[in-house]
């Protein structure tokens, strides 16, 4: 559909013109430089693993550092996703930016799809790129490569797309600032929910566990992040495996077979609901 392409291209061009990409590249470069420094220092202090040790410190350090980088990646791509979408509908409508576009033949649904597509591609692509850079840095600086290198990147990218969809849906009814705050708070709530679930599993509290389960389904970016963490060390067993699966920020949970279809359906439904609400709004 050409309308979607026109809208998406305009969105991407706006990002370039407004130096969005410039800022992202520079600051992400800074983040990665910091991460490189941290990784080099950590592995330097570690020294060589002794053959008889129960815990493989290289794996422990590598998985922890990369897990940390994944958390940062998810957070940064959430910020990117939110800022690309939080004003798209109501905010732009209040400014009078939207009306000239949506009265054109492609109409509101195509407009929304184009904006979502562009924002999702940028934020997901960003997540995947930063993750890939972190994997390479960890590998080169410390000699540790994740057991499963590609899957966590895909899962982080999907997490960014989920956040993009939520933010876009929020922008139908919420004005710019309210929506930005709401989505970032939901992001925090998702992570806290996941953490509570981990604690619940550890202390055998059914209540906490079900809070964790419910939030992972309701805000699946956290489930995706955990699944990514788990995949990093999916082949690691023994005490090392137990420790690394606890993860640096919230534990790692394997992705169930339902996660992928759930996430796909979730994004489609959230965007469709946003579209249905948007079509009915007075502008």
């Amino acid at each position, binding site marked *: 559909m*050409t*309308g979607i392409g*026109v*809208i998406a291209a*305009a969105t991407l061009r*706006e990002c370039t*013109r*407004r130096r969005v990409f410039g800022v992202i590249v520079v600051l992400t470069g800074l983040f990665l430089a910091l991460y490189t420094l941290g990784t080099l220092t950590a592995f330097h202090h570690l020294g060589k693993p002794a053959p008889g040790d129960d815990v493989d410190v290289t794996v422990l350090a590598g998985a922890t550092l990369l897990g940390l980088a994944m958390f940062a990646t998810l957070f940064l791509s959430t910020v990117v996703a939110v800022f690309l979408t939080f004003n798209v509908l109501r905010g732009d409508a209040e*400014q*009078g*930016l939207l*009306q*000239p*576009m*949506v*009265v*054109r*033949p*492609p*109409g509101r649904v195509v407009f929304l799809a184009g904006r979502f597509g562009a924002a999702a591609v940028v934020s997901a692509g960003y997540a995947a790129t930063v993750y890939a850079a972190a994997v390479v840095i960890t590998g080169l600086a410390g000699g540790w490569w994740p057991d499963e290198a590609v899957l966590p990147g895909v899962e982080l990218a999907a997490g960014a797309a989920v956040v993009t969809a939520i933010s876009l849906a929020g922008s139908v009814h919420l004005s710019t600032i309210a929506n930005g705050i709401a989505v970032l708070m939901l992001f925090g709530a998702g992570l806290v929910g996941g953490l509570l679930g981990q604690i619940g599993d550890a202390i055998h509290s059914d209540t906490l566990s079900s809070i964790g389960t419910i939030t992972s389904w309701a805000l699946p970016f956290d489930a995706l992040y955990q699944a990514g963490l788990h995949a990093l060390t999916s082949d690691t067993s023994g005490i090392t495996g137990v420790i690394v699966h606890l993860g640096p920020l919230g534990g790692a949970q394997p992705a169930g077979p339902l996660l992928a279809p759930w996430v796909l359906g979730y994004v489609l439904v959230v965007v469709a609901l946003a579209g249905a609400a948007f079509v*009915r709004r*007075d*502008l």
Partner: protein
Amino acid sequence: MPDAFAASGLEKRYGRVEALAGVSLQVGEGELVGLLGPNGAGKSTLVKIGCGLVRPSGGRAEVFGRPAGSREARRALGYLAELFRFPGWLRADELLRLHQGLAGSTGGAAERDELLELVGLADVGRRKVDQMSKGMQQRLGIAQAMIGTPRLLVLDEPTSALDPAGRRTVRTLLEELRGRGISVLLNSHLLSEVELVCDRVVIITRGRVVAHGRPDELTQARGVSVETDEGERRFDLGRDEVPELVARLVAEGRRIYGVQVIRSTLEEAYLEAVEGESR
């Protein structure tokens, strides 16, 4: 042939505010209709319904026989909103190109240049929107509305920020559009402008049509003024009675230097319609 725009019994409530209380009006093919009314009368609400931006609470609106807001209806119209903004980072001709893409226009650079020329922005086609003055942006908005040669132009106060020359340009433009058979629905507070260019005028107040007709129907004759050798005299007669009046005065031996039928201005007609309603 269906009307370019037809509203029947159109109602719109925003919560407890009744913006439109049953408005019916038509814009025929090739007709230029002016919509007048005080602030808050419902003019913008009406045209937004026509463009599919606002959903009516009752009644029907159609564009060339298609429901307002449908894809076919949107394809037929060009719209300039009352309160619009264009992305500040776009250059004037890039904005037009974006709308060409959305409207599916194949006019290319020739169409863009022609439209920029038409609205007097040929020199600043490369300037960014956020570096343009308000009136320049409004001119650009008019050019934008004309992308893809729409059959119905909906202009919501298109000249509010324009300088006198710009208003003149728009007037000429509207006349030219009529010549090409394009229908126009024009919201305006500039009565003189409406009087000069519109085929028909519709006056609405508080969401209701209170007067409509050709400008010369609304501005009724208010007597005849005759300049004679005894000075100026007023007669409370209509235009049709002027020949007899002149014959009688001449027969009475008066010398006549000038005869003028006095019409109320559109402003007077407007105020009468609007105030009659609010009393």
